[in-house]
């Protein structure tokens, strides 16, 4: 993967996965910046990592358990007060599908 360069389509695809949108100008900008970062990352290919285990965490803990006890976590009013929109004790969001599509 030396000199990895992403195509514009790949950048658009990744943006979609990340729930981000870019106009054409932004897409060019982010593509160029990602290519710069990819150049930096290419250095890793100098290293032979055959049979080297991967490290994903350095915590010594395994399977931390807690007591199986109920707790009173009633914070509905405080939580709803933080929501951008709420109604009748629920968080309000826009239609899941296009309103025009839903009307069909």
């Amino acid at each position, binding site marked *: 993967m030396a000199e990895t360069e992403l195509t514009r389509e790949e950048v658009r695809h990744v943006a979609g*996965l990340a729930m981000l949108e870019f106009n054409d100008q932004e897409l060019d900008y982010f593509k160029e910046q990602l290519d710069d970062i990819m150049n*930096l990352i290419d250095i*890793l290919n100098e*290293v032979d990592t055959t049979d080297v285990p*991967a490290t994903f965490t350095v915590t010594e*803990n395994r399977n931390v358990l*807690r007591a199986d006890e109920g707790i009173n976590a009633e914070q509905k009013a405080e939580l709803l007060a*933080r*929501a*951008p929109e709420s109604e009748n004790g629920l968080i309000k969001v826009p239609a899941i599908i296009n309103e025009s599509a839903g009307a069909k």
Partner: protein
Amino acid sequence: MNYFETDLTKLHNQLVNKEITSVELTEQTIANIKATEPTVDAFITIAEAEALAQAKAIDEQGIDPNSLFSGIPVAIKDNILTKDILTTAGSKMLHNFKPIFDATVVEKLNNAGAIMVGKANMDEFAMGSTSKNSYYKMSKNAWDQTKVPGGSSGGSAAAVASGEVIASLGTDTGGSVRQPAGFNGIVGFKPTYGRVSRWGVIAFASSLDQVGHLTRTVYDNAAMLNVLAGADHRDQTTSTREVPDFTANLNGDIKGMKIALPKEYLGEGVSAGVRETILAAAKQFEALGATVEEVSLPHSKYGVAAYYIIGSAEASSNLQRFDGIRYGFRAEDVKNLNDLYIKTRSQGFGDEVKRRIMLGTFSLSAGAYDAFFKKAAQIRTLLIQDFDNVFKDYDLIIGPSAPSVAFGMDYTPEDPAELYMYDVLTIPSNFAGLPAISVNAGFSEGLPVGLHIIGKAFDENTIYRAAYAFEQTTQLFKQVPNLGGQD
């Protein structure tokens, strides 16, 4: 008042002896912050009313003679949750976010009697080395306001270095406490992974993130870790190992200590002034009776590349929670739910955050995972093995906490990877989960140079002993910046 000529112990004695009340101290602190802020811009929020109410309560119940922080004002980085007080993480995404609970570290400081006077500026979601990625303001270096304070905990560092507060909390994922501490000539500490709870800290890269803290002196820093350390059932990565007294054995005696100086830490990319200052510090350790020997950490140069993959991958996952539904920013004029997610995230995140989300999402995507994310995680293993090899024979590893002194506010390279290199010396200890400190080693080009000391996992005490001995010999903490506007 500013905090240039005092320390935690002196202030504590004044409070215990009723020479000053916590309310008076808090009032004077806030007055000085207001006078100093136009110069350094360290704070996003000054919590004046809340701080004074807290101080009043402490005065009424009486200063706790057994708690050094009782009645003492401190600052908190703005990615650490403070109940009912604005917590933005430096992002537009959380421009109106007031948490419903305190982070564990805030709770611990509260229990110790500390007064939370404000929320410190930072790079958005702790991503950056300058604090310029904040949506709100650009903090300045306390020593020269044309220079960056470093990042991402730049506000926390500038607040302590400019005498606004005696101590602050930061977070450190790849050097975000130690690099700004170095740039500002103060003491910044990243504890061992698992030593301090991250519950209530807005996650960036969970396998690397640690809460760190910044102070003027080594003793005060160790005293603060005494307050912050310990297991927390709400953060399952916290360690149940015994927590020692970190201020014990700070006596200046480091005879026989074995210190390693990796040749890679003074190599290419490190400025001549920084190199000379660190070599002089090494001589200082020898004069104190320690041995200093050159070693090699051969995989050091791969740290930055591996970090930007792993850190960004974890960030891309952690930052999925910002979707405009439950709290924070929500975009308007959207067609449907999917559009709401996309517009909220596209309008709410700044460029650096988007870059990392993109890189991270790519690294984890089908077809890229093995060549990027897994590869980086394998390199991480090699970096950890480098440390294991050196720590078989040595107590500590030293080097600079950044390749140069603080650079200009207007330095904005077109290639973002150029700025990423500023983390090259601090990233490896995050990968290995090791504790590390930055303490002022002197000056180059009129700006502080940070001495970086890395220790073995859960051996914070040895780091503090060495840093204390160095600080007491050099007395560099007595040098303070000249700032306008202070009383």
